[in-house]
């Protein structure tokens, strides 16, 4: 009998590996590297939050929790969402604690998609969106946020992409990789499209706390949108808890019930000690979040002006901790620029096309790194630009 050439499923074989992975490998073994390629805070989780996890271990909380998460944590999430974002979710039927926002996105897509259903994926975006739609049996339909609009998608673009099969729109604002945040007015127009076609918004609000100039508006807080929104968030970015893998998803009861089925079969529950840490983070971590926000804001201002001064034009990102400068003036493409910069000056940036083809001609620079490192990185990039 002839052996199979591969055991892998076709749709998995067809998945493109992440462009970021490739770049990570290139830095292996290099010394004195400054990385602006990191998509996570440079802060360590606040001590009181870490201590809460330690105490929970000491107290012997090492078993499973309820599938949806510790009741106390869900109650704290409900209070927090109401207090900070003016959206009301019932802790028992509308909130699920997940293994990071990534799992939340996965179970949301799997819960709502029938085979062939289309999801509008706004690019540039986090690398997992389109692949997760595919893995859930859906069809990702790419809508490109345009550079002339500072990478903020417009409602008419979404309207034009809607078909009979469209089920949902995936949006991340403030955005990874561009840092762009949709205005409340534009969100209202997008909400109209969603309601008109009876769609869902899968709103990735993981950066909601890291907003620097204006107030943040959640999609679920827009009139009539609560029933059309699956709100994904988590603890990774604002409380510097990436490694804990703790997120949550809020959605109307019917959708939550569907997601919970998948979550209970695939995951059981999020890590118990992480959940205990999360409770402390919501109860007593807000001062730390405010401190970190202030620090990010200063660094954003610093890097944006520095990059613009050296000829790498970049818009002012309203949130998250990324800048997305254009490298057009160098005549290089994104990957060439990133490679040359790494070789010449040992500074890591991520090619913009890793986040969708519309990101070609741009690179993502994270400013979640210390001021001293940022200053040195700017000196090196300036020298790189002068020697081009």
């Amino acid at each position, binding site marked *: 009998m002839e052996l199979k050439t591969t055991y892998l499923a076709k749709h998995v074989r067809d998945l493109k590996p992440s462009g*970021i992975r490739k770049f*990570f490998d290139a830095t292996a073994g290099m010394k004195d590297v400054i*990385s602006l*390629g*990191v998509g996570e805070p440079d802060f360590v989780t606040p001590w009181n939050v870490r201590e809460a996890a330690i105490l929970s271990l000491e107290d012997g909380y090492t078993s499973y929790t309820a599938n949806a998460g510790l009741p106390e944590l869900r109650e704290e999430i409900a209070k927090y969402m109401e207090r900070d974002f003016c959206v009301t979710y019932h802790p028992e039927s509308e909130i699920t604690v997940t293994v990071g926002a990534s799992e939340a996105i996965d179970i949301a897509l799997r819960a709502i998609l029938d085979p062939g259903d289309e999801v509008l994926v706004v690019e540039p975006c986090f690398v997992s969106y389109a692949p997760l739609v595919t893995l859930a049996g859906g069809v990702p339909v790419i809508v490109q946020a345009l550079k002339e609009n500072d990478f903020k998608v417009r409602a008419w673009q979404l309207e034009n992409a809607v078909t009979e099969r469209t089920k949902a729109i995936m949006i991340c604002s403030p955005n*990874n990789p561009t840092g762009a945040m949709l205005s409340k007015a534009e969100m209202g127009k997008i909400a109209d499209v969603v309601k008109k076609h009876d769609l869902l918004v899968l709103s990735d609000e993981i950066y909601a706390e890291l907003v620097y100039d204006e107030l943040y508006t959640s999609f679920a807080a827009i009139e009539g949108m609560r029933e059309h929104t699956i709100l994904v968030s988590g603890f990774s970015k604002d409380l510097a808890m990436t490694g804990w893998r703790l997120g949550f998803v809020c959605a109307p009861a019917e959708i939550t019930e569907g997601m919970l089925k998948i979550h209970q079969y695939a995951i059981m529950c999020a890590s118990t000690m992480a959940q205990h840490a999360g409770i402390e983070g919501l109860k007593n971590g807000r001062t730390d979040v405010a401190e970190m926000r202030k620090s990010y804001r200063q660094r954003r201002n610093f890097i944006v002006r520095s990059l613009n001064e050296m000829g790498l034009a970049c818009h002012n990102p309203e949130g998250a901790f990324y800048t997305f400068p254009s490298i057009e003036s160098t005549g290089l493409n994104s990957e060439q620029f990133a490679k040359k910069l790494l070789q010449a000056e040992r500074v*890591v940036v*991520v090619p913009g096309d890793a986040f969708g083809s519309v990101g070609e001609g741009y690179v993502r620079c994270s400013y979640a790194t210390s*001021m001293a490192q940022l200053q040195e990185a700017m000196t090196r990039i300036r020298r790189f630009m002068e020697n081009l």
Partner: protein
Amino acid sequence: MKLTATEIEIAEILEKDARLTNEDLAKMTNLSIDQTSAIVKKLEEENVIVRYVSLVDWTKIDGHQGVTAMIDVKVTPKRDVGFNNVAERIYRHREVKSVYLMSGTYDLSVVVEGQSVNEVAHFVSQKLSTIDGVISTTTHFVLKKYKHDGTVYNQDDKDNRIVVSP
């Protein structure tokens, strides 16, 4: 004195790192260099920024002698001037690094630095306890500095993050 949010922010930034240039400050606060220079000048002139200093870990330096003592001082307050006169007579001494008026079981907390235990002992017995109004002193020698002014000494600043992540 009422300061604007930006003026306060610049004071906060400089408190953490006084070596940032006006140009860096301007970028961080999104102002022009002239504007930041003016704010820094104002903060200096108004004595909001009192002095720029470095945090030095002297234990790193071979052969560097030195001890720090924290002394609890009980004082009889005087009519009209309270504790101020005694505090002044204490802080005028070169060896005295800080003096605070405290709530609780004693009145003044005095931080003294000297070359040796003997030197500090000499200061306490000959200078401090003889000041008119000082009732008693309790001297505590510092054995090790773990954290000072918000900075952890010997902190491992290693970045544990992977170099590239989505």
